[in-house]
């Protein structure tokens, strides 16, 4: 059937159709292609023959296939739908069959094309308007005579959404890294211990020197013990404290060095 149609087709139209195939990457989807094909009918979009258009489209797909041009799936879906539409339009309506008539479907397609064309037209009109920064301008030197200085923190919605996206996908690809939340830094331990040592005249277990909130939870306690222990070594080295351990793995005790 499409061959008959091919031979009847004028050479010019065939050339145009072939140019379309070569340019298939230039189309933004099947509707765009249909809209381009519809222009060859040289009538108002409202009076377009959807049947002819379906033929043209199917012919296009046919030729693209014969030229072994890969078409994206949505072009093929549209072809299948148009073939279905064509059969509905050509065959007398089956009274037992439910669903919309071929005419209704065709009208909807024509409307979709008209709508797409309309959106393109208004998009062009929009871009053709005078634009800020090109045709008209805002004040070039906005004044800000300051008396009160206030810091305003700025963040855009994009920043917010990106921050969230980053957080929620971080686990997918974050390289292994130490997490710092349960780390009690050595500097903090040293500062804390140095401040407390003058009051430590009696032997006290190292455990008792751990800061509030770092006891009990194993991960935190471990870190606190390590850094506090390192701090005791430093203070002992400086001669500020004495350390005592009765046995291997026995609790470590410390006190202020006598005479300090």
């Amino acid at each position, binding site marked *: 059937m499409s061959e008959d149609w091919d031979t009847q087709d004028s050479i010019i139209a065939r050339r145009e159709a072939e140019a379309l195939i070569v340019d298939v990457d230039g189309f933004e989807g099947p509707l765009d292609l249909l809209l381009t094909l519809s222009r060859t009918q040289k009538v108002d979009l409202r009076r377009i023959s959807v049947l002819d258009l379906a033929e043209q489209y199917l012919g296009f797909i046919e030729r693209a296939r014969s030229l072994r041009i890969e078409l994206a799936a949505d072009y093929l879906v549209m072809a299948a739908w148009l073939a279905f539409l064509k059969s509905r339009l050509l065959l007398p309506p089956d009274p037992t069959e439910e669903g919309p008539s071929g005419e209704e479907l065709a009208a909807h397609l024509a409307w979709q094309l008209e709508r797409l064309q309309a959106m393109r*037209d208004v998009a062009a009109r*929009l871009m053709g308007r005078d634009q800020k920064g090109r045709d008209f301008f805002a004040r070039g030197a906005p*004044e800000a005579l300051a008396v009160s200085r206030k810091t305003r923190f700025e963040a855009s919605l994009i920043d917010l959404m990106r921050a969230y996206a980053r957080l929620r996908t971080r686990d997918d690809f974050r390289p292994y890294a130490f997490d710092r939340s349960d780390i009690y830094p050595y500097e903090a331990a040293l500062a804390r211990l140095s401040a407390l040592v003058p009051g430590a005249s009696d032997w006290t277990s190292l455990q008792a020197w751990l800061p509030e909130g770092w006891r009990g939870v194993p991960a935190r306690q471990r870190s606190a013990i390590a850094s506090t222990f390192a701090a005791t070594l430093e203070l002992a080295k400086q001669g500020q404290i004495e350390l005592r351990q009765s046995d291997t793995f026995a609790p470590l005790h410390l006190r202020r060095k006598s005479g300090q």
Partner: protein
Amino acid sequence: MDKPVTPPQSLFPAPPMAEQERMIEAILFASAEPQTLAQISARLPAGCDAAEALVHLRTRYQGRGVTLGRVGDGWAFRTAPDLGWLMQTERVETRKLSRAAIETLAIIAYHQPATRAEIEEIRGVAVSRGTIDQLLEMDWIRLGRRRMTPGRPVTFVVTEEFLDHFGLESARDLPGLKELREAGLLDARAMPGAPAPEEDDEDDSPRSGQSELFED
């Protein structure tokens, strides 16, 4: 002579209208961004009628090299468009928008609030990555309310910056909007036989989009 109405709580009479006009002129000249009536009023002394003063000011600048215009809820001075050719030095090269981005923008503007699915249905093709992103980043579109349909999709609407950029007082002034609406091209028409478009269960957000602007 009609005196400006002074609210009873103010101890001082409002400045004369000519003075109010001067103040607004100063405020709007000083700012590159449109200022809303509320923002202007907040900076004026008590008892001022910014709305009236703006009308006077706008008339005063008619036909001048700089004109006073409305941008959504705001007001701003802008140079007259016919003098744009004088401003080569100030011209900012904007990023060239792809055809897809321009069409997507137009669809959002004319159909707002529009969901991604609606944009795709109209263009007949998927919205490519980065298109929405780019328009958001340019501050030409923003998120609207979620559609109260299954899946509660996000919607997009155009911003004041969009209106300002294209010199539009409001989204109603989009070129050709009325004709499109009258031609039924802004209707939400489903494919015959397909399930009808889901109605929002919130009565105050009809699916008709822009067309509702014209409903009286």
